[in-house]
């Protein structure tokens, strides 16, 4: 049994619309950002928070505040002490968290948890250097069938692009849809937690 009602203030009359064509072609050419099929928005937030853009929007006091949540307090333009020292426990799991150093700058990487998604399982390895994510790779991907493997291999580079771009994009969030991305985001988040990046 269905009844019809209108939420407060809604009516059903309006509005001209326009047809827009070919506009997103321009966006592609600009390549201002790269973004993926999966909207890893949680991820974009996690990563985006560490970007220069977003941090500069906060008063200096905020940086200290965020450390109260366990976050390594990044500050734009400064070096990052937290990233250069491995997190507690990391030395016990050298295969999972690795510290590398090259010409004075150091990077850490960690493999996130294995996450199940619709048609398989994946885990993500993230590398952090100077308070920026410098690389994200999928180190373990198991799928039930070849089609899923194909699909995942198409999607994963996009997810990577999204993570990398979220660090610089001057946007607050991304609206889109999720698929493999949830597993990707979850695994990445766990990897970042291992690095105490967050």
């Amino acid at each position, binding site marked *: 049994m269905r009844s019809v009602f209108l939420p407060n203030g*809604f009516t059903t*009359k309006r*509005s001209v619309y326009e*047809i827009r064509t070919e506009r*997103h072609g321009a966006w592609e050419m600009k390549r201002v950002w790269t973004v993926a099929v999966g*909207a890893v928005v949680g991820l974009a937030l996690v990563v985006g928070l560490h970007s220069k853009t977003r941090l500069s929007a906060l*008063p200096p006091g905020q940086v200290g505040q*965020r450390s109260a949540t366990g976050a390594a307090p990044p500050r734009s333009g400064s070096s990052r002490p937290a990233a250069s020292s491995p997190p507690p426990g990391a030395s016990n799991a050298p295969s999972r968290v690795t510290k590398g150093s090259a010409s004075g700058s150091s990077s850490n990487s960690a493999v996130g948890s294995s996450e199940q998604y619709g048609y398989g399982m994946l885990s993500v390895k993230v590398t952090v250097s100077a308070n920026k994510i410098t690389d994200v790779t999928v180190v373990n991907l198991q799928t039930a069938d070849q089609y899923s493997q194909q699909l995942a291999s198409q999607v994963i580079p996009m997810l990577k692009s999204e993570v990398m771009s979220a660090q610089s994009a001057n946007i607050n969030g991304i*609206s889109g849809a999720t698929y493999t991305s949830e597993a990707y985001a979850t695994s990445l988040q766990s990897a970042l937690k291992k690095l105490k990046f967050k």
Partner: protein
Amino acid sequence: MSLASEQSEVLIHDEEVMGTVVSFELYFSGISRDRARSTVAAACDQLHVVDGVFSTWKPESPMSRLRRGEVGIGEVPPQISEVLEICSWAVEVSSGWFDPWALPGGVDPTGLVKGWAIEQITHLLIEAGIDAGMVNAGGDLATFGRPPKSDAWRIGIQHPWKADALACVIETSDSVATSGSYERGSHLFDPHTGRLVNEPGSATVVGASLTVADCLATALAVSGEAGFEQISEVEGYGLYLILPDGREMSTSDIVFVNEI
């Protein structure tokens, strides 16, 4: 609810719930950090409760039991009738393009529950004294107040099939929901034909209520061009549709950002 000022503190939280990651980005100045944190915790608790009630993946959820006919509508938590009522409204305004009753396996309000749940907790956050914020449930997001140093929230709309591009960036102070047949494989079901929608495309709806935006986005993703005009008649909601052939349609109230 106001703008995030220079003195605002920010609180970021990600919660895994409802099959996705729900991200909070909250700005506050008039309340303590502990108060903000406990508010977010309460909001997350509420999301988990909603998930427990509505999940069609959990066989023992009240919604699943209702679908199997094991219990009547009077025996399940009242949120279910509330949501189903909104679903009825959505069926009407979308000319049936959104129809939880037409889905195989029994009534399934999943297409609207996420938006509804996020909208509920947004009210909770505002009432607790959070000045401004964004709650993003895997791409369906609600905003309130104003972000730091800006009049509106800038939201990138992901491109449905071009990997290296956003389709566009819009400015809004409202909620944004995007639905497409590319998400979660093809899970969009056309109530008129009884078939899954397979054509890749993307439908975004912008407006005050994320509940409404969420179900209209689902409807528009299913209907494509055919439902655009009808769905655009819902006052207060802007539409942005990317068709499988790459054409785009939008209502005039969508604010596109041309310079970033």
